[in-house]
Structure formats: structure tokens, C-alpha cells
């Protein structure tokens, strides 16, 4: 699946998008896998309260299933308007 990062999450991890192969079944499990990779991931995901997640372009929460998902995106709370 594609994993996307926006705003300061993108800056901390250092890339906007990457392809990830995972057996994770939920967003939270995917986050655990990503955090174990490198310090920059660990740092970006250190406070989940400061993050929001979308699965296949729909806002959801960290308990959500990612089985069969094509796209998971992580970003800070939105500041539109």
C-alpha cells in the first residue's frame, strides 16, 4: 500500500510518500512497524494525539482496519479555512 505524509509529518520523515509492504491489520500496528524502522519515524509518531490518519482518503482513527487498504495517510490536525 501507499503511505503518505503531510505537513510536519512529511518534513520529519523526509518524504511525502512511500510504498510499504506490511502484515499489519490496523493503523496502530502499522505505526508500530514504522516506528521500529528508524529514529525519524519514531520521532514523527511519538505523540499520536498530535496526529490524524486517513485510510483510503477517509478520516478514521488508529484502531481502524487497513486490510485491503490502498492508501494510508498521516498528518497533523488540519488547519483549513
Amino acid at each position, binding site marked *: 500500500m501507499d503511505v503518505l505524509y503531510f*505537513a510536519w509529518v512529511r518534513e520529519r520523515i523526509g518524504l511525502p510518500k512511500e510504498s510499504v509492504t506490511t502484515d499489519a491489520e490496523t493503523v496502530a500496528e502499522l505505526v508500530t512497524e514504522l516506528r521500529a524502522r528508524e529514529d525519524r519515524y519514531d520521532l514523527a509518531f511519538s505523540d499520536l494525539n498530535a496526529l490524524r490518519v486517513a485510510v483510503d*482518503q*477517509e478520516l478514521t482513527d488508529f484502531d481502524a482496519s487497513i486490510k485491503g487498504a490502498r492508501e494510508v*495517510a498521516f*498528518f497533523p*490536525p488540519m*488547519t*483549513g*479555512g
Partner: protein
Amino acid sequence: MRIVVQEQPFDFGAEADAFADGRHDMGAIVTFTGVVRDFGGGGLDAMEIEHYPGMTQKALEKIASEAVDRWSLGDALVIHRYGRMEPGEKIMMVATAAPHRKDAFEAADYLMDYLKSRAPFWKKEHAVSGETGWVAAKDEDEDALTRW
């Protein structure tokens, strides 16, 4: 209903005029436009807005559809820009058309509350000094959703 996500500036007057034009059953048109605001003393060089292409259009359509259904609007318009903007530039606008003004005002207010916290846009300020910083979401913006 029309939803536009674009980088280039929009003509607020022309958009408002076109939106209001030719409606015989709508007694109230409300428009709101958001403008890049300098945080004082000319310290802001530019505002940069990032968004999530693909999700943005869908999220805005969902928010606008909910407003149209809830207030029985005749029509709704949302235009939101992304990219780099200088102080004084218009970032976005919403317009609502309803038979009566209360519904048009409330629906526009609802649109703005949801646009702020549920549409995938992120603002980054570039100061004249060269410093940059992501604009933090405010608790009061999240709290504002509970009144709907």
C-alpha cells in the same frame, strides 16, 4: 453545488455575482471569504498551504452536501486555494443560497467550522525574518464542531 480546489487566485466579486445570479426562489445569499492575515507589524512574508490531492475534493463535497441537506439550501459553493499566498490574498470562499437568511448564515458558519478542522489543508507561515512554522490547530476550532 460547486467545489473548487485550485492554486491560482479567484475573483471573489465575479464568483459571488455568478452564484447569486438568476435565483428566483432563494431570498438569501451569504458569502464568506478568508484572507491571509499578517500577525502584526508586517512580519509575515507568505502563507503556504499544503493539501491532500485526491482527498481534498471529496472531503469538501461531503461537508458541503451535509450543509445542503441540513439547511435545505438551494445551492452551495466552496473555493479553496493551496500553494503560496501573500498577506491580503484571499485563501478561500464559501457561498450559500437559501430561501431565508437564517439558514444561509448558519449553513455558511457550519461550512467554515468544518472546513477548518475536517478538510485536509495545512498552513505554514513564512516570516520576513526567514523563520517558518506550521500553524497549530486550535482547540477552540475543534470545540466549535460540537455545537453542530
